[in-house]
């Protein structure tokens, strides 16, 4: 019989459904926004961490030019031609460095059997795969002799291989890069988008010597990738690299024509950006929740006013004022909670759709669920106080005034 009691106590909530929905709209929007944004923030954080892992905390990059990190990306502000292959050779002498690879990045049209596509060409040496921890799907790494000997060999990114060759075996085939024939020696395993927002599957790797001479005809590098023996040595190496390059380029620190980027920087900028964004969204959601609960207050006041006779009747039938107060508080909490529940379900639906779509890991932040539940109940209680107080002050004598 408890259901009957519940219905007699709270049945009024569902009497006017359209109004109920309108009154909880704000709560629905607030909660779903809060939930979605927190989930996104959480997923983004996990994704960044995963990306950083492929990047590695022991990696240090010397980027040519006045590069800046903006919104998590290393941007090259202007073309600088001062970073040379000799710089890389000089840095190799540092004892804390395990691997080092010069890098020249360009783009080229590649062709195989009439299929063309434009992709990123990275001139690197045999250490690059070890630095980036890329594994090979098939074939082999570039050989030291090939680097030294200006050989035209190429390792394909996974996507490039798929688009040019489909299921066909690529190893040993000859493709044309800007009309020069290159022999495929290997294919990378899928990597995905890395922390610098570049699709690592949409690139080809060729010897740095070949890239600088035959393909692009330049005498400078885009970057130098370093792998330090241990992450704790990164700050030390960073300082040493800085000193060596400043000395070699004969410039003072304020004219620095290169930039040192480590994984940590990227992580920091990314999380800073996302923290700012999510705290902004969170405050907006809470504001929305607040406005939503004001909406509940307004509707509750209207409802109390409209149900004065019902309240009078309940008093006449033996309800104490305290019970009326409680009834309307519970109603208000239930309404807010209902809004919160719908908001949560909508938000849940949204993340189920959008997280996989954006290739974010699917996470369910329990903390957010608990916090938003707590907030809606709290706001429901707050928004119910005044209407419930008004309800409890109603004089049952109004019942006898005819209509």
């Amino acid at each position: 019989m408890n259901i009957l009691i519940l219905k007699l106590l709270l049945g009024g909530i569902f009497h006017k459904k359209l109004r109920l929905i309108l009154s909880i709209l704000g709560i629905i929007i607030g909660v779903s926004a809060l939930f979605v944004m927190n989930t996104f923030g959480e997923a983004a954080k996990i994704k960044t961490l995963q990306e950083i892992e492929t990047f590695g905390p022991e990696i240090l990059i010397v980027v040519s030019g006045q590069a800046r990190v903006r919104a998590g990306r290393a941007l090259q502000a202007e073309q600088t031609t001062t970073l040379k292959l000799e710089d890389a050779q000089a840095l190799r002498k540092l004892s804390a460095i395990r691997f080092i690879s010069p890098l020249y990045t360009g783009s080229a049209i590649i062709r195989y059997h009439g299929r063309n596509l434009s992709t990123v060409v990275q001139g690197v040496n045999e250490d690059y795969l070890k630095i980036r921890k890329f594994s090979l799907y098939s074939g082999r790494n570039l050989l030291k002799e090939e680097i030294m000997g200006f050989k035209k060999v190429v390792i394909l990114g996974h996507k490039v291989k798929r688009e040019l060759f489909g299921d066909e075996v690529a190893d040993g085939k000859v493709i044309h890069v800007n009309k020069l024939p290159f022999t495929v020696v290997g294919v990378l395993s899928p990597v995905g988008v890395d922390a610098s927002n570049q699709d690592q599957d949409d690139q080809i790797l060729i010897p740095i010597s070949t890239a600088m001479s035959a393909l692009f005809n330049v005498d400078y590098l885009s970057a130098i990738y370093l792998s330090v023996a241990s992450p704790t040595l990164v700050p030390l190496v960073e300082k040493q690299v800085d000193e060596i390059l400043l000395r070699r380029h004969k410039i003072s620190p304020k004219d620095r024509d290169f930039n040192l980027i480590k994984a940590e920087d990227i992580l920091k900028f990314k999380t800073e950006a996302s923290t700012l964004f999510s705290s902004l969204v969170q405050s907006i959601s809470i504001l929305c929740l607040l406005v939503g609960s004001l909406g509940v207050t307004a509707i509750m006041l209207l409802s109390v006013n409209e149900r004065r006779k019902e309240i009078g009747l309940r008093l006449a039938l033996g309800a104490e004022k305290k019970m009326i107060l409680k009834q309307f508080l519970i109603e208000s909490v239930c309404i807010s909670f209902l809004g919160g529940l719908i908001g949560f379900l909508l938000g849940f639906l949204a993340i189920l759709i959008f997280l996989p779509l954006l290739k974010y890991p699917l996470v369910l932040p329990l903390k957010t669920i608990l916090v938003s539940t707590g907030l809606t109940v709290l706001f429901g209680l707050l928004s119910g106080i005044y209407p419930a107080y008004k309800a409890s002050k109603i004089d049952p004598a109004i019942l006898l005034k005819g209509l």
Partner: protein
Amino acid sequence: MNNILLQLQDLHKTFQIGKISYHILKGVNLTVEKGEFLAVMGPSGGGKSTLLNILGLLDKPSAGLYLFEGKEVSSLIMRDLAKIRNEKIGFIFQAFHLIPWATAEENVLLPLLYRGKIERDDVERAKVLLERLGLGKHVNFKPSELSGGQQQRVAIARALINNPTLLLADEPTGNLDSQSSKEVMDILEELNKEGLTIIMVTHDPEIAKRAGKVKILRDGVFVD
């Protein structure tokens, strides 16, 4: 003496609205015996509703004594008054005042909500009451699906669910056509014959005639 249900002695009620005070009841004396059927008539503004509010413990007198079952009740605290209203007094109103979103049966059970619990027996009792009042087929109807006469009968069932000792009726036929009025009055008469004390306020002399006793309230006092 034991047969007296309630007594009013020199009862006064004054309302203060802004700076003006209205003296509505000016020394009402009334004795109602158990099993009586009393109709209170009188012109509008004569204090009938105010009197009914005080009798029903919905309002407190400004001065004077109100003895209910031999106990002075006008000085009781709200919680005790609510308990007496719940257990001893049944109300029926001109406008029925049924809860629109609840079924007939649920409306009848409403007073039990404030007694604390609703048992299976109670639901049965509500069904029996509705059946007795000719609404056996309408147990699950909403008020909007019932005619005025049927709604008032649901209200009567609600007033009876707690077996009250006093039934207060405020213009019970005021919103009804003559056929429904007759039906409702037949029911009240029957209930009175079974021993229920009824105090009814009405404008209609025809309806008042059905009561065993008629009193006229004019300018805040009973006149004979």
